């Protein structure tokens, strides 16, 4: 009963795309491909290198949630305010042979929450003697805090206001002068932006944030004229579409980059292993019982050895890259479900007449295998290939999750692994986990639907009559 399934590869693709599930799959996977194709517009060419160069991300906030969290929570969470040298107004004074250069910048702070971190940077071009630098922070209420007063040498100097104990002492002094007590924990990013001195040091509610115009001054005192590039960064608590990780990396870029890596790895692995399995399975059935026996023994072998632990072992010792991993995956999948399918179909085909006819024409056995048999088997593996793409993506993700994946490429699994080992699950850095996880799920949903669409055409038990 039932009509025979279409056999041409093109025909199957065409029919699969006509079904609703097929269309949904194409939309999802098309989005992924568009995302991959958009990468050149979004991210610098040397992105892969930059992703691993943690120092290059210093201007991003650490562990910032995605920007859109604001819309859901209704609180206006702070975004990063980056005052670069072009924001600073320069005034110069000369007093008895000394030059005082003052760089002044201001910013408006209207958010409902404190910044996550503060940093001041200065780059000077003087040679030789260090110069004296004074960093002054003026709040909307007119309070003036001297953050730093001391010598800096040439080149770039970074003041980690939130972490540097020397600077924290200055802030503690400010609190002491206001309240007569010294807070136990000094959190400059809170104290400097807090309304009431009584609550200094408490990570208090948004009502306590002092909104308004803040002024930052860098005063450089030296005996010659100098030029300097000051910078002041008020790190926010939200950043970009996907937030940032502990290492300040923009997760959206990592997630974007994960798409082509995952698609390429999954697709190549799935197609390559399916082809190999089909050839081996079909060859076993085609060339007679001895070959078949050999293929069956290989299958038994892979049944007995624990493949994943051994892959993990290999990754531990050899430090795989994504391409060597691909190689190992192929080695470990020479036989599998596709070879079983190929085997049983080949047995059927062997009985058929036109093969008999081809034999009498004297076509060579190997030629027949590749020209008649394998093309006829392939359609039956389509559904499996589509399903294996996410399986291989997850295999890569598993290794990356354990920190054993490609050491260079940002992959979704690696982002998840980083999140896991940084304790994201137990600290609630959900965006670090949910977003890459969502991407993997989207891809696997796309391929699941595609697989179902293929299966419906080839497999009569799914065909919608």
């Amino acid at each position, binding site marked *: *009963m039932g009509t025979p399934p279409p056999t041409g590869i093109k025909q199957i693709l065409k029919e699969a795309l006509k079904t609703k*599930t097929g269309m949904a799959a194409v939309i999802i996977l098309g989005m992924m491909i568009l995302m991959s194709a958009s990468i050149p517009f979004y991210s610098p060419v040397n992105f892969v290198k930059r992703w691993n160069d943690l120092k290059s991300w210093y201007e991003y906030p650490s562990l910032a949630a995605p920007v859109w969290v604001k819309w859901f929570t209704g609180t206006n969470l702070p975004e990063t305010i980056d005052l670069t040298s072009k924001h600073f107004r320069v005034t110069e004074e000369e007093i008895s042979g000394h030059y005082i250069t003052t760089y002044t910048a201001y910013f408006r702070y209207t958010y409902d929450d404190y910044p996550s971190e503060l940093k001041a940077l200065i780059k000077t071009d003087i040679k030789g003697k260090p110069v004296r630098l004074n960093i002054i922070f003026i709040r909307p209420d007119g309070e003036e805090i001297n953050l730093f007063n001391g010598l800096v040498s040439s080149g770039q100097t970074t003041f980690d206001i939130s972490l540097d104990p020397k600077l924290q002492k200055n802030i503690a002094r400010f609190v002491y002068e206001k309240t007569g007590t010294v807070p136990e924990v000094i959190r400059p990013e809170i104290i400097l932006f807090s309304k009431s001195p009584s609550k200094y040091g408490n990570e208090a509610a948004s009502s306590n944030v002092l909104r308004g115009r803040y002024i930052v001054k860098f005063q450089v005192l030296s005996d010659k004229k100098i030029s300097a590039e000051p910078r002041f960064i008020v790190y926010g608590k939200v950043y970009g579409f996907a937030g940032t990780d502990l290492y300040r990396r923009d997760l959206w870029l990592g997630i974007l980059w994960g798409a082509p890596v995952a698609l390429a790895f999954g697709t190549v692995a799935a197609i390559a292993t399916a082809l190999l399995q089909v050839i081996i399975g079909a060859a076993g059935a085609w060339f007679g019982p001895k070959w078949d026996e050999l293929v069956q*023994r290989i299958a*038994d*072998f892979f*049944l*007995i*050895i*624990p493949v*994943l*632990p*051994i892959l*993990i*072992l*290999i990754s*531990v*010792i050899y430090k795989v890259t994504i391409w060597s991993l691909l190689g190992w995956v192929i080695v470990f999948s020479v036989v599998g479900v596709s070879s079983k399918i190929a085997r049983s179909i080949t047995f059927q085909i062997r009985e058929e007449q036109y093969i008999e006819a081809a034999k009498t024409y004297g076509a060579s056995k190997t030629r027949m295998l590749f020209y008649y048999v394998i093309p006829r088997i392939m359609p039956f593996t389509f559904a499996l290939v589509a*399903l294996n793409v*996410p*399986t291989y993506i*997850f295999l890569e*993700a*598993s290794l990356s*999750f*354990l920190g054993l994946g490609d050491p260079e490429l940002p992959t979704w699994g690696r982002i*998840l692994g980083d*999140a*896991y080992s940084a304790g*994201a*699950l*137990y600290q*609630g850095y*959900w965006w670090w*986990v*949910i977003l890459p*996880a969502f991407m*993997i*799920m989207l891809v*696997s*949903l796309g*391929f*699941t*639907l595609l*697989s*179902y669409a293929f299966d419906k055409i080839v497999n*009569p*038990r*799914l065909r*919608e*009559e």
Partner: protein
Amino acid sequence: MGMATFIAKRALILTLTLMFSVYMTVVIANFGGYVDKLLRDQITFDVTTALSRDPNFAKLSQEERQKLIEQRIEAKIRAAGLDKPFLERSLIQFTQALTLNLGRAAFLRSSSGSKAIADIIMERLPRTVLLFTLGTIMAAGIGIFLGLVQARKALSKFDRIMIVLEIFTYVQPAWFYGILFILIFAFYLRIFPSGGMVSIPAPTEPVAYFLDVLYHLALPLITWIFASFGYWAYTTRNIVLQTMEEDFVTAARAKGLPERIILWRYVLRPSSPPIITGVAFAIVFSWTGAIITETVFNWPGIGLLFWEAIAALDAPVIIGLTVILAYLIVLTVLALDIIYGILDPRLRVMR
């Protein structure tokens, strides 16, 4: 072919495959001798640090010290059998492994401090069985039930939605759900603990201990079931549906047999051998645990042991684990061949 010859032939083939697999594991786990080098380094390090703490050692001259160090190292290396070439060592390990003489771990210990691999494995196995075997059985139960329901309502809207859902949930590995579930149920909802097998400190009273383990078991168990029920449902559905379309079912209908008899004798009975095989295999494979799932849930079972052994490059433990599991798998395959032969007479000739 009679049943006995059939079983004998299968047993012989499986034994040969087992031997080959075990030897390959020995070679891979030792990385063709790389692990031996690590062990030698370890001995050198142990000997030098031990001696340097010895006050008498410092009194010796430079030359004497060097000599003493070399002697000690050599003695230890010989005691460990590391002086023999790798080929010979691999053959020794191979025979020991085959005879289930698992020996001692290179680095790892059981929580009671034993270095005997059998102790280490036996300490972990029950925990893995508790989580994964139980989970597999429950997932298979739920899945098979669902699959049967779907087969009855084949191609209905329910069936089609379930198929996509089942394939989709099955494609993602359990650890992946694990991290999501920990985030949702442990961190946000605080319904379950985020990992481990018992609280720290563990309750001393047995009932409390048992309940505590159950409490810790719940989330990983749910995760495992969620990640695997789809496979059972989908396969069962397809197998049953395939049987339902066999000519002999149509013939049974033409014979005027009541639907109940058709369902049991003509559909479920011929469908059961492949499903039973699948369940049996899954149960055996559940003993290998799951490396990443156990890591994510910090569940101290076989999977985590595998990971610890790999991370420490503890070849004897890796080999020991592999061999035990290989034996279990081979025995299962044989047992299944026998059961299969009884349940499904077709196979006796087909294999």
